[in-house]
């Protein structure tokens, strides 16, 4: 064990931890003021529910040996998950690795909330997240990081492009379609953009823990990831704003924030395997592609992915997975592979397999789980509650009060 790595991973864990409240604020600022608490709750509740679930069974299903599809039950209730360094790292305590991964599991679910905002029932979403976390998240995490079939295949996903972003994005999309459009969608405008700014800042901050921490050790790869993450986010902003400026003549602040997140999503799977110049490119294209996704594709296809869970995380993650297949090079990281531009077509192929498998698996199971939940309780609130606002009708509170 290495004390410095342990401190590093404690820090990284805390940084990823803060991303979830960040998401809650980021999303909360974008909805109408009568729905802000509900939206924040959707992103916040996983911190309670998924955390406990993770300790009880989620971690075991994701990371204990098991088979190539899913982990086993041997680490349930943190059995054998103690201070001794675990199989995933020699230099940090096993239970610290478990907590680091807990923050990923929580975050993934909280991202989904973007697709369903302003109309889904709180109880239905709660039930959905519990099932989804076990049935969808745990297997995919196992495939990629737990030694499952995608790891065996040799697909690369450094910090969670597939596991976190594509999976949450696609889940958000499927739910958005199943729920249908919001009433008064067209009149929707963010009720508090400074809140969204703050949320985005926390998310970006935490993302350094997310990406850099995924190296699990403060080594050369970690430092390269640090540089790459910084430039990709920056390039994502520039990419988004440039396209936005060309199309609409006005660079928006929400665009800048969205671009940063698009760049970050895009670099997530690639960050440990590519050079810094490639990262700039990946980030910039990420920003541009996501702008296209939310401004064109979404209205073209007509789904109401309210806060763009799919538009940012799904699309950005897909581009990032492909980009890894294009730009990866073993010069940067021997544990990686060579991508197309390094002369090898194989990796790109594996990346596509990984992406497509994730899309199909997530889409189908999200649909099934949502249908199941729909038997227990309706997924969507009734029209009157939607008009009145979910804060008041589901939670009995209002976010803001004048000093009457």
């Amino acid at each position: 064990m290495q004390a410095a790595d342990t401190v590093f991973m404690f820090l990284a864990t805390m940084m990823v931890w803060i991303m979830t409240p960040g998401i809650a604020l980021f999303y909360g600022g974008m909805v109408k003021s009568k729905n802000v608490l509900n939206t924040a709750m959707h992103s916040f509740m996983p911190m309670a529910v998924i955390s406990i679930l993770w300790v009880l069974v989620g971690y075991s299903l994701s990371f204990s040996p098991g088979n190539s599809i899913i982990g086993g039950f041997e680490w349930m209730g943190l059995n054998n998950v103690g201070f001794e360094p675990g199989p995933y790292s020699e230099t940090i305590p096993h239970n610290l690795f478990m907590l680091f991964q807990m923050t990923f599991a929580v975050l993934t679910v909280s991202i989904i909330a973007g697709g369903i905002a302003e109309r889904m029932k709180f109880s239905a979403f709660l039930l959905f997240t519990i099932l989804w976390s076990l049935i969808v998240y745990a297997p995919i995490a196992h495939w990629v990081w737990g030694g499952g079939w995608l790891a065996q295949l040799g697909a690369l996903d450094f910090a969670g492009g597939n596991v976190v972003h594509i999976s949450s994005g696609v889940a958000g999309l499927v739910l958005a379609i199943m729920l249908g459009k919001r009433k008064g969608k067209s009149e929707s405008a963010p009720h508090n953009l400074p809140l969204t700014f703050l949320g985005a800042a926390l998310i970006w901050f935490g993302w350094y823990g997310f990406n850099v921490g995924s190296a699990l050790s403060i080594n050369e790869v970690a430092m390269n990831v640090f540089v790459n993450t910084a430039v990709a986010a920056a390039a994502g902003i520039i990419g988004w704003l440039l396209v936005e400026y060309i199309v609409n003549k006005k660079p928006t602040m929400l665009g800048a924030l969205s671009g940063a997140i698009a760049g970050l999503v895009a670099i997530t799977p690639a960050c440990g395997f590519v050079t810094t110049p490639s990262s700039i490119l990946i980030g910039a294209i990420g920003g541009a592609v996501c702008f296209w996704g939310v401004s064109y594709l979404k209205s073209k296809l007509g789904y109401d992915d309210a806060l763009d869970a799919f538009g940012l995380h799904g699309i950005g993650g897909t581009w990032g997975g492909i980009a890894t297949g294009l730009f990866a090079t073993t010069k940067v990281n021997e544990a990686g592979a060579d991508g197309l531009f390094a002369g090898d077509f194989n990796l790109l192929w594996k990346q596509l397999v990984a992406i497509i498998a994730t899309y199909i698996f997530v889409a189908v199971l999200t649909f099934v789980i949502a249908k199941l939940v729909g038997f227990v309780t309706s997924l969507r609130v009734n029209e009157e509650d939607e008009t009145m606002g979910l804060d008041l009708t589901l939670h009995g509170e209002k976010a803001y009060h004048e000093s009457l």
Partner: protein
Amino acid sequence: MGEVLTKIEIITKTDKFDAFKQEMAKIGVSGITVSNVLGTGLQKGYVETYRGVKREITLHDRLKIEIVVCEVPVADVVSIASKIFKTGKPGDGKIFIYELGNVINIRTGSEGHAALKNEPV
């Protein structure tokens, strides 16, 4: 001035204003002023809870829509408003009708019904 200037004040729920505005434009209403108000009437209140402590709220969010007309018939505005805002449930609101003494258009200086005309600029 033989003309009659009338202010129509509508207090209603907040969610159908866009549709209403479009209808007004169609019948030639030249301007609308709207503000957020709180109202208590027939509709029942609701309960908020903070740390287990309940608060009964009897003031609802309402829109106050003010329209001053001269040539546009008051009855038209009232009937369109009634059609759009009526749900049949408490809280649909009220329409109040007042007579005005005069209207002045600050930009042109014109008065009375002329002040309400939207001649192209």
